[in-house]
């Protein structure tokens, strides 16, 4: 497995993407950006990111579809996915979680809260790997 600590940000709205990318990079994370689900899928295949931050409403392939493809693929299903969406209804959240997302955060969100969610998920991942090694 590739060892870099890369985050994949899948978001078609460039303004949202840029602010979030900047904030994450300021915290020392390495962020790559995909603007639709299909590109993102290729990047997952090539780079094997550590965590995916995912928007729902995107052209070509929406977030739910992308999420299912990742979570039902044995090669990738261990990658945590945090959905960040402006679809705020309970039903949307349930659908997101049913597609396998680990977290579902709705807009408007607080940057600090999103970043701490990302870091918590990464820490959990490290613990899981350590436990598995034991």
């Amino acid at each position, binding site marked *: 497995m590739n060892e870099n600590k890369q985050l994949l940000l899948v978001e078609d*709205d460039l*303004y*949202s993407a*840029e*602010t*979030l990318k*900047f*904030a994450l990079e*300021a915290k020392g994370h390495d962020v790559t950006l995909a603007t639709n689900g299909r590109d993102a899928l290729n990047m997952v295949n090539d780079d094997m990111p550590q965590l995916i931050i995912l928007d729902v*409403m995107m052209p070509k392939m929406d977030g739910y579809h992308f999420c299912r493809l990742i979570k039902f693929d044995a090669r990738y299903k261990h990658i945590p996915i945090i959905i960040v969406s*402006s*679809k*705020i*209804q*309970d*039903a949307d959240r349930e659908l997101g979680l049913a597609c396998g997302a680990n977290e579902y955060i709705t*807009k*408007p*969100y607080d*940057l600090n809260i999103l970043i701490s969610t990302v870091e918590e998920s990464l820490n959990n991942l490290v613990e899981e790997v350590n436990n598995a090694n034991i």
Partner: protein
Amino acid sequence: MLQCVEHTSLFKFIMVEAARILEADMCNLFLVDENSGKLNCFTLDKGKVKEIRTPLTRGLAGYVAKTGESINLEDAYQSPLFDPQIDEDMEYKTRTVLCFPVKQKNNKVIGVLRVVNKKGKALFTSHDEWLCKSFAIFVSNAISMINGKKAVSPDTMITENMRLFNLAVEDLPEGVIIITNDTDSVVVNPAVKWMLGWKINKDIDKENTTLLLNGLGLGDVSKWLEDEVGMLTSQEITIQIPGSKVIKVDFAEINGGMNNKRNRGCIVVFYDITKEKEVDHVKSEFITIASHELLSPITSMNNAVNLILQGMLGPNTEPQKKFLRIISDGTKYLSYLTTSLLDIALLEAGKIPVKKEKVDLEAVIKSTIESLWFKAEENKISLINKNGNTPSVLADSNRVRQALLNLLDNAFKFTPHGGEIIVETNTTENEVEICVKDNGVGILLEEQEKIFERFYQIENTATKKHYGIGLGLSICKDIVEAQRGRIWVESKERGGSNFVFTLPLYK
């Protein structure tokens, strides 16, 4: 005319039943006396029929008798036709009035049926109008039968009444089912059949009607009729035949007088609200899309400006910080407005499901208050939690938190620096009252009912300043009522406000 025994008992029956079925304080019957040109007004006084004569030109009844038109008034005193002297004579305060002419078959007006003051400060509905009209037809028919010296036994009167009643029910656009436990016959009008797509060729009997009603989710009707279950609930149901229809099912209880379990029964009314729902749907769809398109850029703006404010892109000068804060406050406010509008659209479309589960109220209050400590400190307001040993309630914890946050947010707006906001609870027999008290500017009496309306803006009486767009409290009311609670405010100008909402106890 009144000497006739049948008349007296008939009038009494009409006045008692009309008042009861229309849920009104009082029902009077007026009959035109052609010889004297006056109206004879019949009232009930301690269970006895009393007769008063009034001039034919006087008051609402006089107007209806003269013109043959019906009247439905929300406030009698607003009408030039109303004669307040009548209230004074009878030591009574008339509010809502429903007046229908009693007409003969040739359309001649022979009297007036007047129903006064709908109970619970409500207004008379179109359904009440229809009921009142049915009573007026019944009166006319009964009087002509008695005057025509037909053999009138109580039985033929009832049969005749039923015939008329059936005629009226047949033509009604709303579906009506009447079912009672003391008879095997039921009333099911044609509207029910086409509304529900109910294909049944043989005679409709009690059994298949009960089965139909049970299938609608009202509850077990047959058990209810036998008084084995306490309550049936009104429902909105969607029916797929032939096109998808949304039908509102309203349920009204019939009780055959005090403690008379024998006559237990119900009237179920079906309204086709498909069109209204479609309009609602389009409206809420529009708001959902519009809000979604707003939420993304607002979030980006908010995040971007906060990154700059935090100095992540290099140091800012003081004037730069000042203007960045203006942008930051603006985007926060936009974000609040957008989520509020979205909340309302979702609530109205019934798309926010409200759970009914055991909620640890004390914990919810505690965590909600803790989340606001920073804000309290910033505003130099003491935020005090005075509740303890609060029992659990049957509610939705997220919605309880939302309601409480809205009320606290409101209290912050109206409490000056150095003021205090107290949250406390009282437990009554069936519910818990949650009170949010402040010692701010208070709310004028005439504003107290309006503040829960959509888009009603409260003016701070001290600063003459408006706050928000008037959605917070109306959302709060929706949320509380969806959990079967109530909400109100007690306040005096300059004496602070006490907002109270209730939630049912978890039993």
